[in-house]
């Protein structure tokens, strides 16, 4: 996984080049088996900081692109996260129940949140490319 460094708001944010992004700061990684792994971006975790809990959706739930699938609690704020793609939730990261700080420590790796089996892979192509997301960050 290679990373782009983006400087914005006096800080540095990392963007992984092997995946796609949403306007609402989730990433989506197309895996070789055709499923999509989902998490929040380095920018999102830096904004939230102090993450204390992650609410995970039920396995088997059918979600639509843009639908709220859970929330992330930081010390004083609750922020929803959204499905980047339509499909079925086939796996959730149970480790986050014990160690929600993984979202802060490793947002693009061990801090993944769910895996979605997409209804149509075409939707993946409509997500933001890493360079496009990096541009968005610069404007924040």
């Amino acid at each position, binding site marked *: 996984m290679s990373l782009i460094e983006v400087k914005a708001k006096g800080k540095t944010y990392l963007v992984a080049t092997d995946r796609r992004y949403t306007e609402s700061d989730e990433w989506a990684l197309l895996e070789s088996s055709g499923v999509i792994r989902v998490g929040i971006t380095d920018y999102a975790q830096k904004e939230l*900081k*102090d993450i*204390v*809990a992650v*609410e995970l959706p039920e396995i088997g739930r059918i979600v639509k692109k843009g639908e709220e699938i859970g*929330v992330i*609690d*930081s*010390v*004083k704020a*609750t922020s929803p996260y959204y499905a980047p793609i339509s499909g079925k939730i086939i796996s959730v990261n149970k480790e986050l*129940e*014990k160690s*929600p700080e993984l979202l802060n420590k490793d947002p693009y790796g061990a801090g993944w949140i769910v895996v979605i089996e997409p209804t149509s892979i075409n939707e993946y192509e409509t997500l933001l490319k890493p360079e496009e997301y990096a541009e968005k960050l610069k404007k924040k």
Partner: protein
Amino acid sequence: MYELYKRIPLLDFYIERLRAEPGFFGDWEVPMRYTSAIEEHLTIRTSVGFFDVSHMGRVLLRGPDVVPFIQYVYTRDLSRVKVGFMSGPTLALTELARVKDDEMLYKISDEDWLLVLNALAREKMLKYFKHIIEERKFKVEIYDLTEKYSMLAIQGPRSIEILDDLGAKWAVDLKPLEFRLNEEIAGVKIYLISRSGWTGEDGFEIWGEHGEIKRLLEVMLSKGIKPAGLIARDTLRIEMGFVLGDHEYGEDPSKFPCAVSLRYGMSAISWGKRGFIGEEALRTCRREGVKWIRVGLKISRDAGRLFPRKDSSVYVEDVYIGWVTSGCYSPVLNRGIAMAYIDSKYAILGEEVEVDIRGKRYLAKIVDFPFIKK
């Protein structure tokens, strides 16, 4: 010029020098966080940190009728406060015995008292004081010092060491609640220093002109003091079971029970005292007993670090028994904690209840305050 919001005077210094993340508390822009709220919280509990609390209202009351005036406004007996000492916290009530604000008083002399108000209540209280003074013809003048001085709160078990390091031995010898005016620390002129500790830790409050406070901060930062923001301040007060306006108390009787239910503690109400605003309703509430009572809820570890937010419902079996007023993740206990008003019939310490966290119910135990041992 019309201002939509105010910023605390040293905000830019905190942003540039200490990378503060600013945010809004009411109409005040203040440092919300510097590094991590959890780290800042633990620093205050185990070491020493500072908060800039210049958004809090500060007022000088002056005149021959100050004592009758404050005796009329507040629930605590302030007739025997010693000169050079703080008294409080105490409560200003409405006629229906709901709480307008909780405040601290400082007695400079019989005719000169300082008052610290909550930021969100400042304008309301200033209007209210003027109204009472006119109506009752009290000879009291009010000077708003809020924007004249910055105010720091130095908090944590190592507060003393910091002041000692700065050569202010006399400050270390201040008794709890004692204060002094017009002193000097490390060559910096300060208007007031007091010793209290509203995070539950030992601590000092320092007021001074903005430039002087900035100079003092530079010296203290070189001695290793760490900044803490408003998020940590909130989680610290919740761990201690300290109340906040619009959460645990407020004036609206349809939202907030009477002040007896608040169980404020710390002798905020002197039952032996007569003739203060709201007394009649307060005594009625006391005689009749309370329908609601404020308790602590320790959330089960099954919820991980989840915690209920304001207005979440509390249940026993299928019965609704009350609502949450504040909740947070407790860095010391490593679990969710909350304050709630529950029906007094169900307020049995140690009993298990259920609390709603976003549509799911989790077990919680009814506990007394503070949540942590002090």
